[in-house]
């Protein structure tokens, strides 16, 4: 009797994965070798025995549960963005509103100061200026900046709308939830990044407009 084939070869024999010549050789060997027959049987039976691992059955409510989760979570892209960025968006919005409020408060503070200063400066010079200048040039800043201001308590600072650094916070936040993005979420992520960038841009434009409005 020739030497017994390696396990690898026996497995290839079982899988019908051998060349015709090797197949004949192993077949001939196995017929004359009880040990190899037992090995083959053990491979075959242990593989079949995996059937004993009987999986449980899902409950009847599974599909409904999936559908209700989908409805709860609402999955148009915009909603997905809202869900994932919820806290960041609200923070950004809050910060932006706060910026707006501070601008308004800062400016009204300045106007109050200016108003309170009016009687303190020489009314005759104001009157002269009013007569000398056309009406549209009568901006308070133009007239008062030239005048010496008395010492007053420091006015509330006028807050400039500093761009809120959302992007560096948002992008790693998105990335860490997407470990399997190579399969399904690349596009998704890109869309969201684009939206965040657009939002940043809109916010900046908004801020500039607000400032222009206030300045005029």
């Amino acid at each position: 009797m020739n030497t017994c084939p390696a396990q690898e070869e026996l497995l290839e024999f079982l899988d019908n994965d051998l060349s015709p010549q090797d197949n004949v050789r192993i077949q001939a060997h196995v017929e004359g070798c009880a040990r190899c027959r037992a090995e083959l049987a053990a491979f075959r039976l242990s593989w079949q025995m995996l059937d004993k691992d009987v999986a449980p059955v899902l409950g009847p409510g599974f599909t409904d549960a999936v559908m209700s989760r989908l409805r709860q979570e609402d999955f148009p892209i915009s909603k997905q963005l809202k869900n994932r960025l919820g806290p960041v968006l609200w923070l950004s919005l809050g910060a932006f509103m706060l910026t707006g409020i501070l601008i308004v408060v800062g400016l009204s503070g300045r106007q109050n100061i200016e108003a309170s200063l009016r009687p303190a400066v020489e009314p005759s010079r104001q009157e002269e200026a009013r007569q000398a200048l056309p009406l549209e040039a009568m901006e308070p800043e133009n007239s008062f900046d030239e005048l010496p201001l008395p010492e007053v308590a420091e006015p509330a600072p006028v807050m400039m709308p500093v761009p809120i650094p959302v992007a560096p916070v948002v992008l790693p936040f998105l990335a860490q939830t997407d470990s399997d993005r190579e399969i399904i979420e690349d596009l998704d992520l890109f869309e969201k990044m684009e939206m965040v960038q657009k939002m940043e841009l809109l916010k900046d434009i908004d801020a500039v407009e607000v400032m222009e409005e206030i300045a005029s």
Partner: protein
Amino acid sequence: MDPAQVDIDLMSRVAQGEESAFPQLVERHKTRVFQLAWRFLGERTEAEDVAQEVFVKIYQVRTSWQPSAKFTTWLFAITRNTCLKILERRRPMVSLDANVRSGDETFGRQLADANMPTPAEKAFKDEEAALVRAAIDGLPAQQRMAVLLSRFEEMSYDEIALQLQTTPKAVKSMLHRAKVDLKKKLRNFLCI
């Protein structure tokens, strides 16, 4: 109609915004997804979570779906990924010896046995099922998935390679190692 084509039709309808086609897709595949997850993870609640997660993900990305591959290829790829995430998440909490599982978990499994077995038969079956479960659990994750896809989904080497992002040759070698391991662990229960 060819089942693969039915899947493509249903998924196309979902992608076009027809929400009512989605429950049909879930119904068609929920058992396979759940059972694969259960066999891989060995835990019912986690397997149910995985199954839900898989269908939610599919729905989330429905508009970017392209019918270029079989729907089930996509489905199992997402299932595998979701299972691996669960494994990663629980890794620090489990024993390094994958064979060690809580008795409740192993013996609490439902055995699909329509005939009422005698207590002795039941004990034998339970023991047999527990042994098989432990043998499957004891395989490294990648080998385990290859075994499940081959044994229960009847996938070819090529199909498994696609799922595991490796070569058919690597799959063959992975399965051979797994078969040697399983034979060794289950041998005492085999009537040879």
